[in-house]
């Protein structure tokens, strides 16, 4: 009952932020005009602004936020480690590397899903590597160190590809791929990301029962008929789908998968299956709020989303490391 109320509150928050996101922008439309243009198509310029610029931006914020929240909660449930987050352990960075390779080798131009699939490939390699290195029940320090190595490698290779590109704008986009932004994205990007993301959501949502069982330990979970190998495979595929598709269109946005599950975990009673649903909604709310803030703080400057999420997330990350150390894990 309390859980249903929490989900309803989070959904209402997402709806409210989604509406605000649609109403913020340099065109200076009044809310009434903006909604009339969005819903009824009144005014050619207003309709273009609302339907082609603001709507895809708000939709992508919801989709990417939900994906990052979900991926964070799922990885933390599997690794039983609150520090596992796609951005921090290099999954987003590797997805960005895949995306950049696709864009600058011509793969993205040659077929429609080339870009998100390449990003998915990058993400899958990183999740696989991390699970191999840190495994279920591995120590926090191994996880973080493996993550640092994967992040550094992915970041360096992304910079290398962009510096080698003959395109004069490529090198300045290093910051976009590392920090993420939703500025001037279009419905094309929504359609590009949605199929893989939806697949990833289904895969990750199916993990709930297995993750709940895993809280009792691996042996107990096995006796309950949970196949750890299958669980791990679905987790890798799901995280790669959602993080790959999101990063391909918006760059790597860090810390969302860390902050959101951390805040919601005590509220849902530390039950992984419940945390998955709550974190999806919470992640959507966080990215929407960050994307509204970048437009209010520095309109017209394209402040990167990752800047805000890191300002919120990094201190929390330090706090979590400190607490983990105190607990002697």
């Amino acid at each position, binding site marked *: 009952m309390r859980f249903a109320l929490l989900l309803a509150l989070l959904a209402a928050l997402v709806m409210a932020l989604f509406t605000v996101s649609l109403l913020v*922008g*340099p*065109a*200076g439309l009044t809310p009434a005009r903006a909604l009339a243009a969005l819903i009824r198509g009144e005014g*050619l*310029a*207003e309709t*273009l*602004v609302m339907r*082609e*610029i*603001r709507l895809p931006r708000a939709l992508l914020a919801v989709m990417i936020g939900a994906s990052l929240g979900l991926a964070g909660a799922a990885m933390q449930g599997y690794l039983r480690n609150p520090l596992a987050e796609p951005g921090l352990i290099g999954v987003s960075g590797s997805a960005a590397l895949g995306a950049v390779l696709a*864009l*600058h080798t011509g793969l*993205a*131009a040659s077929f429609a899903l080339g870009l998100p699939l390449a990003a998915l490939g990058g993400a899958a390699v990183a999740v696989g590597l991390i699970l191999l290195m840190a495994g279920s029940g591995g120590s926090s320090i191994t996880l973080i160190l493996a993550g640092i190595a994967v992040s550094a490698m992915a970041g360096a290779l992304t910079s290398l590809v962009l510096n080698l*590109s*003959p*395109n*004069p*704008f*490529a090198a*300045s*986009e290093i910051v*976009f791929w590392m920090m993420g932004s939703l500025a*001037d994205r*279009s*419905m*094309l990007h929504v359609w590009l990301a949605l199929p893989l993301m939806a697949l990833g959501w289904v895969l990750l949502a199916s993990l709930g029962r297995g993750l709940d069982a895993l809280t009792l330990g691996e042996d107990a979970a096995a006796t309950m008929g949970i196949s750890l190998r299958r669980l791990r495979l679905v987790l890798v595929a799901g995280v790669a789908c959602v993080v790959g598709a999101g990063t391909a269109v918006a760059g790597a946005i860090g810390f969302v998968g860390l902050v959101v599950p951390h805040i919601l975990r005590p509220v849902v009673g530390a039950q992984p299956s419940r945390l998955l649903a709550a974190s999806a909604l919470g992640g959507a709310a966080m990215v929407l709020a960050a994307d509204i803030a970048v437009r209010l703080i520095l*309109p*017209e400057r394209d402040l990167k989303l990752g800047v805000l999420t890191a300002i919120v997330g990094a201190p929390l990350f330090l706090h979590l490391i400190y607490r983990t150390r105190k607990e002697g894990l």
Partner: protein
Amino acid sequence: MARRAGRIMSALPRASRALALAVSLILEGAVAQAGPPERVVSINLCTDQLAMMLAMPGQLISVSHIAADPLASVMAHEAARYRLNYGQAEEVHAMAPDLVLAGPYTSRYTVGLLRRLGVEVRELPVAERLSDIPQTIALMGEWLANGARAETLAAEFRAGLAALAPNNDERPRAVLHYANNYTSGSQTLAHQILTFAGFANIAEEAGLSGGGTLPMEQLIMLMPDVVISGQRYPGLTRAEDVIDHPAMEALRERHAGAAVTDAEWVCGTPAVLSAIARLTALHDAEGS
């Protein structure tokens, strides 16, 4: 220096006349070096092109690698005949130039370092108006000691511009839309090219004087009649994604007219005449 040499000479006893003569000969040699530069290196796209137009045979020894890029340079073919440089101080210094041509946006560190190494560096100002172009040509002619050729080129440019009589009966509103939503305001050469061909520049309505960004939402609200897009480069970047954004495509579909800015727009050289000619044709097609 010469006056000081004279003073030294008069102070010297007669016996040392021979030495003094040698000193003055060396000084004279230094003065003679200030004649036409013999080893000129250009490290800026715009000076590259003007120097290639105005240099005497063998005088220009290297141009920047950008001059050989057909997407940015109207003289890519000619540039292939020169040694290409990447504008690095060490590389340029090793060519032992007696004159380096740079632009005002050339890295300050490169220019400063070259000057400290004793290389003469001259910076060609950016032509912000069509009327600056003959002066820019004349200045380059002066630097390369080829004033006659510069005079001819400047006269040809003036005549060519006069022949492209502007048509101001109708002024369709146009927007220059480059990567990253960058545009050119009223104090730019691109604005002058646009207005000379008979268009009104929408960036002026938005209050932009130099170059700057015009958020896409604002651009759409201004509803330009014609979209003149920036050039695309190989590889896909987010910066250039905005050029093909569905909202911009929708603007283009309203009117048949659309054009692309290219190498001809970049520098204040006689090549802008063909940019104006193409735009004038677009303007006349819009009017009919």
